[in-house]
């Protein structure tokens, strides 16, 4: 390394004189600086995490309109998705309720003989499928009607002597046997007793709804599942766009030897954040829609005895939803960025 001539301020034309006069190199102090500092730093986990967070934040902030639009779109998709889950959840609740509350009411003829009533009662107690059995006399039936419908109670004055209401047995079916087929079979059997006037489902609305409820549950679940893919697709798409805008930055990161996780980290965090943000929006949207719909239906159909039973999702389920959308956001962006970053180009 001898004869290094520096011509910082002179013309590049060579001359033997210039080559011969070895001028002292204008030292910048590099060697001294490196000696003092050493070349390798320690790898701080905290520092890397900070990088991911700051990177993600700057991605989100860089174009607020883009972030807002995509997040809102995802929020809408997710709110539909969450509505589906609400549907399944409530279908499940109602189904359980229907199973436990549906029963049969056996109306007796007024002239039913005591023996035949006993025979019927024996049968009811013997059948393993039948749970509780409760007898209701003509008087009790009238009293109940009076209490339940105060508007007509005046009309019922004086009916005590010629009470037109029949006496009845209200029976419930053990939960394990609670299916429409069993109801039908039981109904057919009971109808054959001579003093039985009529066998009816009580709470028949729910009883008949149970299959519909099941269907609604499946459809809601399927739709939610499909929409979650749409949401993941949107996350992936926004990450692709985000990566595309940062191509130059990624090239520079590659140049200076950034590890892969350092390059991808901010995008994955961005995806998780977007997932959570959209998930929060989705939950809020679904909750709003739920309460509005609940209110409207409950006041339009007050006699349907379900409004106090259905509910929005419990907190644990909401937390689970957030965890899932966050994870899906992260995974979708990890996949997207993996594809998008491409060759180790510089």
């Amino acid at each position, binding site marked *: *390394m001898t*004869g*290094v*001539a*520096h*011509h*910082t*301020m002179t*013309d*590049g*034309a*060579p001359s033997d004189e210039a*080559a011969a006069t070895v001028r002292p*190199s*204008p*030292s*910048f*102090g*590099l*060697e001294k*600086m*490196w000696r003092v*500092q*050493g*070349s*390798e*730093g*320690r*790898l*701080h*986990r905290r*520092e*890397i995490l900070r*990088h991911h967070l700051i990177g993600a934040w*700057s991605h989100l902030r860089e174009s607020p309109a883009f972030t807002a639009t995509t997040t809102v779109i995802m929020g809408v998709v997710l709110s539909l998705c969450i509505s589906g889950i609400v549907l399944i959840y409530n279908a499940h609740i109602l189904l359980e309720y229907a199973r436990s509350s549906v029963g049969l009411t056996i109306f007796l003829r007024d002239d039913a003989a005591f023996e035949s009533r006993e025979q019927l009662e024996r049968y009811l107690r013997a059948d393993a499928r039948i749970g509780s059995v409760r007898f209701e006399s003509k008087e009790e039936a009238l009293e109940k009607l009076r209490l339940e419908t105060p508007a007509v109670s005046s009309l019922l004055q004086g009916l005590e002597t010629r009470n037109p209401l029949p006496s009845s047995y209200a029976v419930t079916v053990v939960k394990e046997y609670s299916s429409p087929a069993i109801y039908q079979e039981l109904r057919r059997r009971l109808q054959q007793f001579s003093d039985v006037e009529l066998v009816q489902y009580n709470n028949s609305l729910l009883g008949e709804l149970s299959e519909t409820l099941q269907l609604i549950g499946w459809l809601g679940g399927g739709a939610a599942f499909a929409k979650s893919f749409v949401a993941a697709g949107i996350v992936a798409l926004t990450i692709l766009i985000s990566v595309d805008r940062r191509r*130059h*930055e990624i*090239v*520079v*990161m*590659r*140049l*200076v*030897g*950034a*590890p*892969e996780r*350092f390059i991808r980290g901010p995008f994955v965090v961005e995806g998780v954040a977007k997932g959570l943000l959209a998930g929060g929006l989705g939950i809020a949207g679904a909750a709003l829609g739920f309460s509005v719909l609940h209110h409207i239906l409950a006041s339009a159909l007050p006699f349907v005895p379900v409004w106090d039973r259905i509910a929005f999702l419990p907190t644990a389920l909401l937390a689970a939803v957030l965890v899932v959308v966050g994870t899906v956001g992260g995974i979708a962006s990890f996949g997207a960025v993996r594809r998008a970053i491409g060759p*180790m*180009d*510089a």
Partner: protein
Amino acid sequence: MIRFHRAHKTYPPHQIALRGVSTVIDKGEFVFVAGASGAGKSTLLRLGYGAERATQGEVVVAGRTINQLDREGVASLRREVGIIFQDYKLLASRSVLENVAFPLEVRGIGREERSERALLILKTVGLGDKAHVPPMTLSGGEQQRVAVARALVHQPRIIFADEPTGNLDRDMANLVFDLLVEANLAGVTVVVATHSLSIIDKLNKRTLVLDRGQIIGDYLDPRRGVTRESRASSGMGEPQEVGTTAAV
């Protein structure tokens, strides 16, 4: 430190850039790669820092066989080298200081330490007072010095510079080369691709001359036209007939 052994590079589909390049660059050398446009200078450097893989043959840099490296391997190699381009490749969204500190950031070095080190090297390249402005507000020469500072901040073992002064006037170019020479004096191996015969002539360092993908000359003393072969065959200092200028 760097070894090319019969390295071929064909860009898809069949653009041949290098045909059987073999050479060795030792630790601490300062080497120019010269040649006409399209001769393969950039490709040679890109093979060196792992941006391309040789289609045939072998390239070994800092103890690593480039063809066998995965992404993390390439990243790890690049943490030991510094790369400088004609177009600087600075990040517009970051300040000059943050740009220079970037190689330290990817190592997970804490904010304070990296700012301190970046500021020191910025002062070294004469830009201590521009640390907090965006790079786009600087002149070309200043931007290239920022890029040089970034390439030097982590004390690389090797510097690859591809046409580093292509956009600069002579004074700025000289300043950049002074920095590269000093880094070299401090032990860094330097490989510079350039068209500029005047700079080669001035610094008079070992020069590989490429033509259509082949090394056609390996000058140890380009000013006198001394090639490796001529020195080997006839002892030190025997001038060769063909000068650098003629060869290129």
